[in-house]
């Protein structure tokens, strides 16, 4: 489904990646090389190299964020092709040669994922109320039972023992009361002290007012939590004075305060300032609203799906939502309605008054250059504390990037990301680290191990057989000599302007990049999705690394949004460059440096499907030779199906 990202219909652009074997260089980012003599004390240079790699996010995410669309948009305008952008202008392509793409059912049915959660059909959006109870992980989700577009929203429900193999259950909540007649929207679960569950969710009333409602399991002894009872006194919260009737939604999981009360926060806005309201309660039925907000940030618009939780400064396990203390930081996360981007910030929570301040206000929640869980397609995310394995798990809604006509034709829209663990990066303290849950490894089938040296301007086919369901773990090293030359050479200017979005994609060659994998590629690379590192020489001759996914050539189709996604990724002293890629038909999830920077993309190849899907390794750098050491697993499907008695 189309959204606010730039739309670039396919032109007949040649793919330089396929020509790169013959040294064709369409664009370069550096000047002509000068011969340099290596110093005898190259050892000192090497030390200097690796020492420079400790970096922070301060100022370094300057290229990300809202500027993304502007740069892609300017490129598109220059090329004379049509585009979609945030300025609301959508023009018909002047390039009359662009062919409209008739999707056939063979192409569309290939798109369905094998091991990501999605319902059997129709539309899904936000994850709701995730929790672990009596041996089962529960997942609820915004669902349209009637169509492959948003509407008529109810709560779908599924359970799993391992967050991977899901079983569909009947709908959990439907709009059968006046206070949710127009929609049973997003909500969160809280475990009370006695282990019982309460669910708070937003209802759209019969008069279109957004209110908060309480529900709880009808039968707590049922591990499947099939039936839910709505509190007879609903709604428990209505929009307070000064808050719009349609700006009040997505209540969080509650946490215990030092005074023994429960506290929740709900996102909203006042004019253009995004805010998070705070309420205290003892019984989840009556609430006291705080006069102060948890936090607010001007010019960020409506905050949807606010999430608030503690992370340990020292340990790698997750923390229960109520944990506080000196060893803990708190995360405030919100989904920005304006930009469809999830942002988070790290800060300090003051339990005495229910307020929070960010460690770094310049990258506060919602600031375009601030932190994101994911630099691709990822929204309405929500975490929960998994008391079973002491983890904090993150769910994210991954919408479509294709046309609604295609969604209607294929009969479904949206998937969920693979659940990820979330922890604070204890080395830097300035960002979160995410990783697909360990249980996904149970899907790994056969694997092949590779160790390859890839010279500049080379593309190498990676023979793994079927290539639509893969788990790739890779380590890259740039040849030392090449690094020294680049860092030592004055003619190679520091590239302060690079970002994935304005870098021109994977075909623009620099001294030290791009290099990585082309997934979901066809043999001739007429369709392919590069996931890659791009290393630049930054300020003070330090190296700066970016992790990107370029979907601009992922398909010949022109009714699909095809951005270049990505961000800076911090690489610490002594760290090799590592990436993990999960490929599952129309979704690609990339994780750099163990999950410090993550990118989810949706791609819709028309040719690189079924037996024609291939995998390539490439090095499009001008100067550097790269060694890639990697393992590729075939991934089994999760065979998500309706629950039956046999599943017990």
């Amino acid at each position: 489904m189309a959204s606010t990202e730039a739309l670039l219909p396919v032109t007949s652009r040649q793919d330089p990646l396929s020509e790169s074997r013959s040294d064709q260089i369409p664009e370069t980012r550096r000047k002509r090389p000068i011969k340099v003599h290596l110093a005898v004390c190259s050892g000192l240079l090497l030390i200097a190299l690796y020492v420079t790699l400790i970096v922070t996010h301060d100022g370094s995410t300057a290229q990300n964020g809202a500027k993304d669309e502007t740069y892609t948009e300017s490129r598109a305008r220059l090329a004379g092709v049509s585009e979609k952008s945030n300025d609301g202008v959508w023009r018909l392509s002047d390039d009359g040669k662009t062919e409209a793409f008739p999707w056939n059912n063979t192409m569309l049915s290939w798109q369905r994922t094998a091991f990501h959660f999605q319902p059997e059909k129709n539309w899904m959006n936000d994850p709701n109320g995730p929790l672990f109870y009596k041996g089962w992980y529960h997942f609820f989700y915004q669902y349209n039972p009637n169509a492959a577009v948003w509407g008529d929203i109810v709560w779908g429900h599924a359970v799993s023992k391992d967050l991977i193999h899901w079983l569909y259950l009947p709908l959990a909540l439907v709009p059968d009361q006046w206070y949710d007649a127009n929609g049973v929207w997003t909500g969160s679960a809280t475990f009370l002290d006695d282990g019982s569950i309460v669910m708070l969710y937003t209802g759209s009333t019969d008069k279109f007012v957004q209110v908060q409602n309480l529900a709880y399991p009808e039968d707590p002894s049922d591990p499947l939590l099939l039936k839910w009872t709505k509190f007879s006194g609903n709604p428990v919260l209505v929009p307070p004075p000064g808050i719009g009737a349609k700006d009040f939604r997505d209540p969080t999981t509650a946490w215990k305060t030092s005074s023994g009360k429960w506290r929740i926060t709900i996102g909203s806005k006042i004019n253009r300032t995004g805010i998070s309201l705070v309420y205290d309660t003892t019984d989840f039925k009556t609430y006291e609203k705080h006069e102060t907000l948890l936090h607010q940030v001007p010019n960020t618009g409506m905050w949807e799906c606010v999430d608030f939780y503690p992370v340990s400064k020292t340990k790698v396990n997750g923390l229960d939502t109520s944990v506080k203390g000196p060893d803990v930081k708190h995360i405030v996360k919100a989904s920005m309605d304006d930009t469809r981007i999830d942002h988070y910030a790290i800060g300090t929570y003051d339990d005495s008054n229910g307020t929070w301040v960010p460690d770094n206000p310049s990258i506060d929640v919602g600031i375009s250059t601030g932190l994101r869980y994911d630099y691709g397609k990822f929204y309405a995310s929500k975490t929960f504390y998994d008391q079973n394995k002491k983890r904090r798990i993150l769910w994210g809604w991954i919408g479509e990037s294709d046309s609604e006509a295609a969604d209607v034709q294929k009969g479904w829209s949206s998937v969920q990301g693979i659940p990820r663990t979330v922890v604070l990066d204890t080395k830097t303290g300035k960002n979160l680290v995410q990783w697909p849950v360990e249980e996904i490894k149970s899907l790994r089938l056969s694997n092949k191990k590779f160790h390859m040296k890839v010279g500049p301007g080379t593309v190498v086919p990676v023979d793994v057989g079927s290539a639509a369901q893969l788990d790739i773990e890779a380590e890259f090293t740039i040849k030392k000599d090449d690094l020294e030359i680049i860092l030592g050479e004055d003619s190679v200017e520091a590239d302060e302007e690079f970002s994935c979005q304005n870098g021109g994609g994977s075909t623009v060659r620099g001294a030290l990049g791009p290099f990585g994998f082309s997934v979901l590629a066809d043999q001739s690379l007429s369709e392919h999705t590069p996931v890659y590192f791009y290393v630049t020489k930054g300020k003070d001759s330090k190296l700066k690394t970016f992790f990107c996914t370029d979907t601009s050539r992922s398909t010949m189709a022109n009714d699909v949004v095809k951005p270049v996604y990505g961000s800076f990724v911090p690489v610490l002293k002594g760290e090799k460059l590592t990436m993990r890629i999960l490929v599952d038909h129309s979704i690609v999830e990339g994780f750099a440096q163990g999950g410090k920077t993550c990118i989810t993309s949706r791609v819709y190849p028309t040719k690189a499907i079924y037996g024609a899907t291939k995998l390539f390794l490439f090095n499009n750098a001008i100067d550097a030779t790269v060694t890639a050491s990697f393992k590729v697993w075939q991934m089994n499907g999760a065979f998500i199906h309706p629950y039956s008695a046999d599943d017990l």
Partner: protein
Amino acid sequence: MKMIVMVMMMMMMSEGSMIDQTCKQTPDFNLCVSLLNSDPRGSSADISGLALILIDKIKVLATKTLNEINGLYKKRPELKQALDQCSRRYKTILNADVPEAIEAISKGVPKFGEDGVIDAGVEASVCEEGFQGKSPLTSLTKSMQNISSVTRAVVRMLL
């Protein structure tokens, strides 16, 4: 005294009605104003109301275009493939985009409305491109693109 009051009222009205102010923030002021003024609800609507009027225009145009497409099968049988594609695309506008946008704006989750409206423009463009430069529907599809971009700008004001 009455004259002064009347003059003052006229000045206030011409200072920029809701329609004027809203349409100034869209890519096509004249189109926006003419669409909204042509609807009796326009003069008293808030921004949500204006958005809903524009979505209604999208619906009307989609219906008109579908009728035109149906008529073309007989007149231009050689265009069958492109017409099939257009038929599918315009049915999506009518059956998916428009209802989604109406529900989203009425219920106060305008982002889904924006998606539906953007998609209407996409579907029109894809239909147009299917004729590879020889489209019999150009003025209708261009119209849809223009209305879609104006409507999108209005919907974004609700975010």
